[in-house]
């Protein structure tokens, strides 16, 4: 009798295995059902995504997630933040562990085409730079001949460093670390002459991790283009549209002067563009599958793009990053959002 029991149990198991599961519901449905947006962020990059000792997350990438949650779930606080290292981020997104990756990720062809992702847009136009101690008396990156450079693995940094080194015949020696803390630790202990990552990351690290930020300078050369932005999985076009237009909406809001403070008053404005933004005239939200106050909620949660920038990485913050290329297209930068209409 016993062998029969074992046999039937295993047959049941095999049958269950053969019942190959159909593809589950789309990302948007899962988010709505869960009632929470799962957002992959950096383990700790000041200005972009960082948790304080109480566990509260702040930063530019964090604000994007809050904006997205405000649009879909009506509440910017219904977000679960999953800190990810550079190595884990893409598999976490691919496997469904997170819904959106908002982790200062560079938009490149390889990532867009071969990882099964869609990039939503650019939240920060950045470039890769070098940080060296002032003691090294180096004024330009082209003087770093034969230098040891600490980098973190899992990022575009290694490849850019190699390209720059080959083009300028500098024969740089990269020392590649798994974790960012190990890489910065090795730089600050003097193992490497230079540390390289996105310029915004350099500012954040110099400010937060250096004992005396004035002892380190960021070299002027930006050796690559690093457009940083959020990414989502392929396979849910509705979610893609919402994610894109939340970002464009934030930029449009800044362009037309809709701020966190005045968004309620702006509902009564007569400007046709503002009326569409606040949903007072046409219901743009319905086309996205949301309600007509979607952008109002978003701006009320995080402010417009300019306010997000100023609050997290702007001149009043320790990072003190200039708007530069991240300014609006009509103010000297290249942030240009397609119109909300």
């Amino acid at each position: 009798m016993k062998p029969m029991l074992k046999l039937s149990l295993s047959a049941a198991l095999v049958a269950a295995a053969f019942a190959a599961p159909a593809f589950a519901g789309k990302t948007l449905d899962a988010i709505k059902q869960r009632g929470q947006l799962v957002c992959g962020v950096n383990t700790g990059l000041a200005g972009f995504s960082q948790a304080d000792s109480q566990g509260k997350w702040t930063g530019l990438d964090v604000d994007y997630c809050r904006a997205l949650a405000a649009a879909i779930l009506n509440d910017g606080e219904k977000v679960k933040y999953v800190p990810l290292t550079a190595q884990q981020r893409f598999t976490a997104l691919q496997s469904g562990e997170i819904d959106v990756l908002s982790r200062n990720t560079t938009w490149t062809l390889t990532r867009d085409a071969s990882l099964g992702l869609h990039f939503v847009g650019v939240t920060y136009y950045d470039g890769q730079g070098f940080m060296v101690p002032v003691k090294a008396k180096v004024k330009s990156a082209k003087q770093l001949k034969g230098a040891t450079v600490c980098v973190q693995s899992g990022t575009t940094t290694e490849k850019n460093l190699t390209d720059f080194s080959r083009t300028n015949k500098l024969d740089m020696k990269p020392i590649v670390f798994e974790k960012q803390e190990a890489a910065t630790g090795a730089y600050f202990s003097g193992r490497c002459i230079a540390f390289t990552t996105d310029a915004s990351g350099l500012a954040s690290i110099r400010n937060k991790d250096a004992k005396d930020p004035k002892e380190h300078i960021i070299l002027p050369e930006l050796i690559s283009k690093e457009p940083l932005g959020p990414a989502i999985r392929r396979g849910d076009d509705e979610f893609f549209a919402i994610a894109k237009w939340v970002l464009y909406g934030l930029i449009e809001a800044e362009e037309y002067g809709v701020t966190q403070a005045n968004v309620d008053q702006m509902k009564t404005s007569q400007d046709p563009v503002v009326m569409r933004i606040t949903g007072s005239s046409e219901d743009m939200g319905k086309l996205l599958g949301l309600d007509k106050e979607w952008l109002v909620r978003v701006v009320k949660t995080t402010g417009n793009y300019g306010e997000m920038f100023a609050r997290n990485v702007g001149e009043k913050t320790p990072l003190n990053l200039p708007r530069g290329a991240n300014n609006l297209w009509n103010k000297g930068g290249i942030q240009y959002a397609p119109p909300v209409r």
Partner: protein
Amino acid sequence: MSAEPLPTPRGPSPAPRRRQWSFRSEAFRGLLFQLFAVVLVGCGIWYLAHNTLANMAARGIQSGFDFLAQPAGFDIGETVIPYDALHPYWRAFLVGVMNTLRVALVGIVLATILGTLVGIGRFSRNAIVRGLCYAYVEFFRNIPVLIQLLMWYLFFTDWLPPIFEAFNVGGLFLLSKAGFSFPVPVWSFGVALALVGGLIGLLAAWLYRRWALRKFEATGRVRSLFWVPLAIVAAGMVLGWLVGGAPTAWSIPRAEGFSMEGGASATPEFLGVLLGLVFYTAGFIAEVVRAGIASVAGGQVEAAGSLGLTRGMAMRLVILPQALRVIIPPLTSQYLNLTKNSSLAVAIGYPDVVSIANTSLNQTGRAVEAISIIMAVYLVISLSTSAFMNWYNKRAAIKER
């Protein structure tokens, strides 16, 4: 009447074999059980593979090992073979494998020497030596190897001076944050011939040792078993060097700009991994050696003493050869552990195969392929090491009845 031999009686004919197809037959149950197990495992693997392929198709993730032929696009900090960023991925992996083997082989040699000394030291007459060896073993065995690696690396990067202010021994050996730099001969025909001569000398020395041992067994006349072979190897190298033209060019390390030019360097990453692994594994090897020595019957030691052998000679000639048979199997697993622990180098920036695979994984997104390459590399190393040690073990095994 002529006697005819009686026909030899035949035994009863064997009962015809009947295959019993019922649960009461053990053979049939065994067959069924095996079939069920194989089907279960096969279905499990099919299920996992099907899901993986479905997931990858749904996400648009590409797969395949074709990425190995594409240019890697990243530099590697230290390489044994020439490599630059335009070489394909497979060459980058090869560099990683050679780095792993480099640290593993040097580590195995050093750990064995240190571990044997500490293991023998636990039987020393001197109580302080015994105590120190015991403390060493307990200390280094009970702290995880990752922490030891991190501490060694911290020591090297924090306490060593920067390149411009390197510790200088005779202008030839420099100790700095770039590691331990030492002069190497400039590679030329003469140097290559010297190495070939050294290898031939090694072979000659081994043959001499066999001859000397045979003569010792036959006549009892002791011949030098260490100094003469060493002299033979040295003579081979010198001869080869002379034949090659006696080149004397050395490459001396100097601090220039931001790096060390000339000579060869053992980087802090390499030293950190090496020393961390050596001290950790030596603790385990010391225990294995101790257990092996303790397993030799006490009568052997007493007999050696009664023959007038000193403690050193008794250890070398009587105890260690017998202990070796007990030591070899656990020693093998310690060697394998050291090799596998070298994969932790990824935490401190040493470019071993795990680190290279990590970089490739991130640049190409081929997680499944990169991880399977890592596992395949380690499997090959492990299986070949244990196969070799099994063969050696069979040769050295105590032949029982």
